[in-house]
């Protein structure tokens, strides 16, 4: 067989197989489909894998222990985005019509994919849940009927960080004249807190300076020389991502900036980011919108129902306490609680995205409900409404002790009044550009 024939055969095979690619896979009609966009590969996989494991474990726990939600079995399908926006959009389009009723909600787990899906979810009537990332102004549910941002936003995170610093210093009055720096990933994500911090700087009289770090963030020597030797701020905040986090912590150590005055946002607080920084990370602080560790009731049940029987998603039960794992659990919990609420209202059968959006509009995960699940202390209660797609937006401060995160504060509330006005102003600007009429909320 000569090489030309090999080529022809391969091309022919590719064409035939390609034409089959649209064929849908069969699903059981009575089970609820759940599509999960994950990144188990690519440059950010160390943070993506525990999230995906946590998400899958909670869904599998419901299936194994309760036979699904209200007797409706859950059918989980993952799609790997590798944290790439093009792939993420493809994943969403591939999964959105699967199952009996399509994808009930999408959690893209990336700011880039979130932005690419904003228009699509409105057309497809599929709720977009962005837990701790994405557009902060989507907290205004009148303009973003299909976008939900519990439990926290970046703007809230910035406010919480300043709130925490003021408590450390002995009140907001003591912030006057203090210097606070922000080291951020130079992208849509990293720029989110700037407006909030600038407003707060004006309000409380501290001096705010910002240091953009270009992607991927491996080169920060000059940034940190400036911070550590020239500016000498009282506190440094960080909106970092992936390899940038460990690099920043190591550079902070190199210029002798005290790690306990260095506070990262939740995406700068993964276990996977601390371990490469080694000893330098000890004392570093990070905001978290979930509790840390695996001593909660829900972890015990996951270990008993899944890991004891060899059905766990993570490599071993040891990995179930990682911060990213708990975030995966939390995302699964928000989704399944919304599914349950939708089923309670529309009947115990698979529900559509529109029905889930209805349930999310009035989602209520109370302290009692969290106790029932075994997640009290792990997550903050969430109450959403037609207008408010965020909830309380609280977060905790945790500190890395060299081996694991230790919680060092209670839930800290952001200044909701100021932020709400900012959300609404920003959402109104978006509505004007896009020609959206805000929906009435009764």
């Amino acid at each position: 067989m000569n090489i030309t024939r090999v080529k022809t055969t391969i091309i022919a095979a590719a064409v035939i197989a390609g034409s089959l690619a649209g064929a849908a896979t069969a699903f059981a009609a009575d089970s609820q489909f759940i599509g999960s966009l994950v990144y188990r590969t690519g440059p950010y996989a160390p943070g993506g894998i525990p999230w995906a494991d946590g998400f899958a474990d909670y869904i599998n726990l419901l299936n194994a222990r309760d036979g699904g939600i209200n007797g409706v079995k859950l059918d989980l399908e993952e799609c790997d985005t590798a944290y790439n926006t093009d792939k993420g959009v493809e994943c969403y389009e591939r999964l959105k019509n699967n199952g009996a009723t399509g994808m009930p909600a999408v959690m893209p787990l990336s700011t880039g994919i979130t932005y690419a899906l904003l228009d699509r979810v409105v057309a497809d009537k599929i709720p977009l849940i962005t837990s701790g990332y994405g557009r902060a102004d989507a907290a205004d549910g009148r303009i973003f009927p299909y976008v939900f941002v519990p439990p926290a936003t970046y703007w809230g995170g910035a406010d919480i960080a300043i709130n925490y610093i003021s408590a450390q210093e002995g009140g907001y009055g003591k912030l006057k004249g203090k210097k606070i720096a922000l080291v951020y990933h130079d992208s849509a994500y990293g720029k989110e807190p700037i407006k909030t911090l600038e407003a707060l700087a004006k309000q409380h009289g501290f001096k705010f300076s910002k240091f953009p770090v270009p992607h991927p963030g491996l080169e920060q020597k000059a940034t940190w020389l400036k911070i550590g030797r020239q500016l000498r701020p009282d506190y440094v905040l960080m909106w970092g991502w992936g390899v940038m986090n460990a690099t920043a912590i190591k550079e902070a150590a190199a210029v002798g900036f005290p790690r306990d005055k260095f506070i990262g946002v939740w995406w700068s607080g993964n276990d996977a980011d601390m371990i490469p920084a080694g000893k330098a990370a000890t004392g570093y602080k990070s905001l978290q919108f979930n509790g840390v560790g695996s001593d909660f009731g829900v972890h015990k049940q996951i270990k008993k129902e899944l890991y004891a029987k060899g059905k766990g998603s993570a490599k071993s039960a040891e990995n179930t306490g990682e911060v990213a794992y708990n975030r995966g659990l939390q995302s699964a919990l928000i989704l399944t609680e919304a599914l349950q609420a939708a089923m309670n209202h529309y009947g115990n059968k698979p529900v559509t995205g529109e029905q889930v959006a209805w349930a999310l509009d009035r989602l209520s995960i109370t302290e009692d409900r969290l106790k029932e699940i075994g997640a009290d202390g792990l997550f903050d209660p969430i109450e959403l409404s037609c207008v408010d797609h965020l909830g309380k937006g609280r977060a905790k401060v945790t500190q890395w002790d060299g081996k694991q995160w230790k919680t060092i504060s209670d839930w800290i509330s952001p200044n909701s009044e100021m932020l709400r006005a900012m959300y609404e102003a920003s959402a109104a600007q978006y509505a004007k550009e896009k020609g959206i009429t805000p929906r009435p909320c009764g």
Partner: protein
Amino acid sequence: MIYREAGEFKASYREDQAILPIRQDRWFMWGLMAVAFLLIPAISSQYWLSTIMLPFLILALAALGLNVLTGYAGQLSLGTGGFMATGAFAAYKLATMFPELHIVVVILLAGLITAGVGIIFGIPSLRIKGFYLAVATLASQFFLIWMFNKFGWFTNYSSSGVISAPPMTVFGDFFVTGPHATAVAKYLFALSLVVFFAIMTKNLVRSNIGREWMAVRDMDIAAEIIGIKMLPTKLKAFAYSSFLCGIAGALWAFVHTGSVEPLAFDVNRSFQILFMVIIGGLGSIMGAFLGSAFIVLLPIFLSNAPHLFGINIAVDLISHIEFMVFGALILFFLIVEPHGLARLWQIAKEKLRLWPFPY
């Protein structure tokens, strides 16, 4: 047997110089247009149209732009992503500053602005050649993305630096951007523009401008000696190439994703387009489309394949297999045909002429 020009006589210069001189080619092209404009929108699912055909068409347009610069004029460029971003941001600024402008006008003006930016970044090409020029254009890539990140004016002071396309119509209720645009409308709109610019480019490279580009590509000193002026020729190539890339960027931001951050046009996008041109075939209009099809479609097919054949394997394993097979296929095609897929197409046509009695 079927693909034979015997008996087709050209009675005028016009016929002799047609883009497709052979009758069978013309039929094939009309057939292809019918499939693209009628059959595909009629039978394709929304998934096919919006996630496979749309990126394929838009990136093919960008590849066409780069092919003019690299394939026809011989100027190696790594700034495609930056020019696409320029197109996207220019279209956004135009659409938000002058909401009454028609979308086609917005996209064309965005292309013209990008052409202006391309001319500025093309100036170094008069002194720098080859790989060194690639590095110089890489600077434009990083500078443009940095500029859109740095200055809030480009994003209307959005806190995240993300731009979002307002809903726009071609006529009446025929929305092509925004949440109410259907996949078919977006596809047809992109297809019309891409077909228009492909024909325009094909004619341009057959004209005296195109011949000048090719002369510069093949040997710039010889070209200069026969009287081709370097400055206008090279800058025309940069302008036209950036014009097409800008339009592709505007389409990507407005029609494909709807909202976009500058990172969507980072250096990886430039490499992706360059690979399309190399795999598709340098200096070929067809090559831009074949290369785009290869780079866009193949990974999607590979990641769907295990599912189709009923094999249930973990998603991370699928992703890794996809990378390996994709890499191996690129190597395979470059080894068997270094001149790209367009050359394979040409060989196939030559064989078809003799079929079924080759000698």
